């Protein structure tokens, strides 16, 4: 059984290598398709063993969460959890240090894997059920408080020069207003998708996917495609300029952010990263980048691991929800299987990071950066169209319009998460339906 599970993990991890390199493709979309395939197998009377598909799925998520750093940094097509790594990551890329930046975030991802195995592994079954028991009735206000924080802490980027007065004030508030508008419009889009989704019922599990693609991936691809930025010659370094202290600080910051995001509903890796970044006040760019690597892995893989924690009964993240439809973990053995799969997949993914990054850099030498962005855009459009049809493309276009606001005005792209935060916070507080009725969605 161990060899079967190991083979499944490795298959999932290797597959995730290719999937991670496709910019804009989210692993949950692939997992959804895999689940559909398993359902159809069940329908034909062929039963598949959980020892095969669970490690496979874990391999997919773990491998992807480690390796999707490569397109995020080198090809500039981030998923939501990577929006903070992109800015410093792209700075590394534009100074010829794309390989170093990618490997630095990769080192953070490895720390994240260590934290999951050696910290969360033994401690989660003992402490997390208590935390869940205490906080469960309070999730709604925690979510509202997080929304308040996101909205209140955007920093005005303008208004730094000129005489005092309204002109200066409006200059400063252009970015802030753009951020608020983005959040509001995303929230309305979220309500629309939740209460009167135009996506067909057959693809309801991919309901939010076109909106996410539009809000996060498409604006970035468009910007790259039209910006005409020339990527300089990239240098491969032998060592990373980091030490144990930096790794430890990154681990703490990223672990807290990713762990928070994994545990609380709707809170994503990007939000976790924002909160941890503020809380730990780390200024060093290397700590920042590595902490985002930690946060990403802890968020995606940790959320999936929570599903297997004995006595916790917690389903967080798209991956866990997809697996929940197929299998319910019952024993500590399932938890050990999940931990072992994460360890194996995490180790293999990290080892694959360097060759895959080098391969991508070689590809970038041969193919124009803008062409890659256009190619990424085509993949995203094809994927959205194949799963959700013309309606999905329309939703994606609306999402793109909203997602372009922060890109154009220089406000936080995290505001686009209003698409999830606003409707779900309203629902959790019991005001979702009145708001939907006010918006004439009922």
């Amino acid at each position, binding site marked *: 059984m161990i060899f079967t599970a190991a083979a499944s993990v490795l298959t999932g991890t290797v597959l995730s290598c290719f999937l991670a390199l496709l910019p804009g493709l989210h692993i949950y979309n692939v997992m959804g398709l895999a689940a559909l395939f398993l359902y159809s197998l069940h329908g034909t009377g062929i039963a598949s063993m959980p020892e095969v598909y669970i490690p496979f799925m874990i391999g997919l998520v773990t491998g992807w969460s480690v390796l999707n750093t490569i397109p995020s940094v080198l090809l500039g097509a981030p998923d939501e959890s990577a929006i903070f790594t992109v800015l410093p990551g792209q700075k590394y890329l534009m100074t010829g240090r794309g390989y170093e930046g990618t490997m630095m975030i990769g080192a953070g991802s490895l720390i994240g894997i260590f934290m999951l195995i050696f910290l969360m592994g033994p401690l989660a079954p003992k402490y997390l059920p208590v935390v869940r028991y205490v906080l469960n009735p309070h999730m709604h206000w925690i979510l509202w*408080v997080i929304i308040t924080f996101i909205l209140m802490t955007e920093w005005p980027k303008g*208004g730094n020069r000129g005489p005092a007065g309204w002109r200066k004030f409006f200059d400063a508030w252009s970015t802030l207003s753009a951020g608020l508008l983005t959040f509001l419009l995303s929230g309305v889009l979220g309500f629309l998708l939740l209460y009167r989704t135009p996506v067909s019922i057959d693809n309801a599990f991919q309901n939010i996917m076109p909106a996410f693609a539009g809000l996060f991936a498409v604006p970035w691809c468009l910007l790259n495609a039209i910006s005409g930025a020339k990527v300089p010659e990239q240098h491969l370094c032998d060592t990373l300029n980091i*030490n144990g202290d930096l790794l430890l600080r990154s681990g703490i910051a990223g672990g807290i952010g990713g762990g928070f995001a994994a545990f609380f509903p709707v809170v994503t890796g990007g939000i976790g990263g924002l909160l941890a970044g503020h809380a730990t006040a780390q200024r060093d760019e290397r700590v920042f980048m590595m902490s985002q690597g930690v946060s990403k892995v802890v968020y995606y893989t940790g959320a999936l691991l929570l599903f297997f924690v004995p006595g916790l009964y917690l389903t967080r993240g798209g991956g866990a929800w997809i697996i929940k439809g197929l299998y319910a973990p019952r024993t500590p053995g399932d938890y050990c299987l999940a931990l072992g799969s994460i360890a194996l997949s995490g180790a293999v993914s990290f080892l694959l990071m360097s060759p895959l990054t080098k391969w991508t850099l070689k590809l970038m030498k041969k193919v124009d950066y803008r062409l890659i962005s256009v190619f990424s855009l085509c993949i995203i459009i094809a994927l959205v169209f194949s799963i959700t049809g013309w309606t999905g493309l329309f939703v994606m276009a609306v999402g793109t319009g909203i997602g372009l606001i922060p890109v154009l005005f220089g406000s936080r792209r995290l505001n686009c998460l209003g698409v999830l935060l606003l409707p779900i916070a309203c629902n959790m507080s019991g005001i979702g339906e009145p708001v939907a009725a006010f918006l004439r969605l009922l």
Partner: protein
Amino acid sequence: MKGIAHFISGVTVASFCPWAIEAAQNGNPSFFILGAVAGLLPDTVDFKFYRFFYHYDVSVEPDPLQLDPQPIADALAAAVSNAAETGRPVRVKLSTIKMSADNWRQYRVRIDSGAGEVRVQFGPVVSTGQVPQPDSLPMNRSVAVAKFSAPVRQSYEPGYTVDIFDGPGFMFKRNENGDVEVDFLPWHRSWSHSLTVGALLAGIASFWTWKAGAVVFGAYVLHVIEDQMGYMGSNWFFPFTEKRVPGFKMMHSGDAFPNFAGVWLCCLLIFWNVYAAIGNPLYHFSFFRFIMTAMVVPFAIFGLIRRLLIRADRRLPEMLSIDWNV
């Protein structure tokens, strides 16, 4: 303290109010949101509203292409002398030097009251995260010196670093002894950071319910108290007092450890308050055991591991610092 520390402190204040927890259990998050907003509000008022309307008499705009520190030193020294001679307050703004979307030229200013001079020196290009960029120090890093004649009293530190976003402002004002007082960021922590304004806002919130007023006042006051731990202090009783009460100088607002420890402690207190509100809890643990398990032991382990790692690295913790001669 940093924004998140004030913010979570406000939430913590709300968690100490039984009515806030009860309302939250019934699906009403208002008190917690109020606490959070009030906790951050003093800084929001200053940084997002008031500072854009604050008038300066002199605005110093260094030339990014010709890095000459002398005009900056001269302008500050002249402002001190002018304030001493005329008795009228002189407000000076030092602008930042933006090099590109995410890069800024750093410079440092020292108002040395003992030597009676202002010294200015340019430094490296830093990112918006205030991290120096490699090989970005200017070729010529001469120190500009400009003398002033009047005695100067400073309530803040004598050295100021100018780098990202909006530059610092100063108000030079002659006091009754003839000394010129240096008021750093005169628009910050003045009227907005006062108990009276907190009470006023609490009064407004009390139109809804006195419970909301209590949360707002508690969160607002805690912000002022937390800021008092730093250097600048706050003007506690505006409009009855004009000046800020100097801070206790226990920490700088951007220090990582106190900020993180504060945020973590607040999270634990919120958790404890929520736990204590459960009538017949399934799990039982004491406050002492909780704090030991969730704060004391992890922090001790972190400190120990960090020490071992730094020792294993056989050098001091890496600092991204630049030598300054001001």
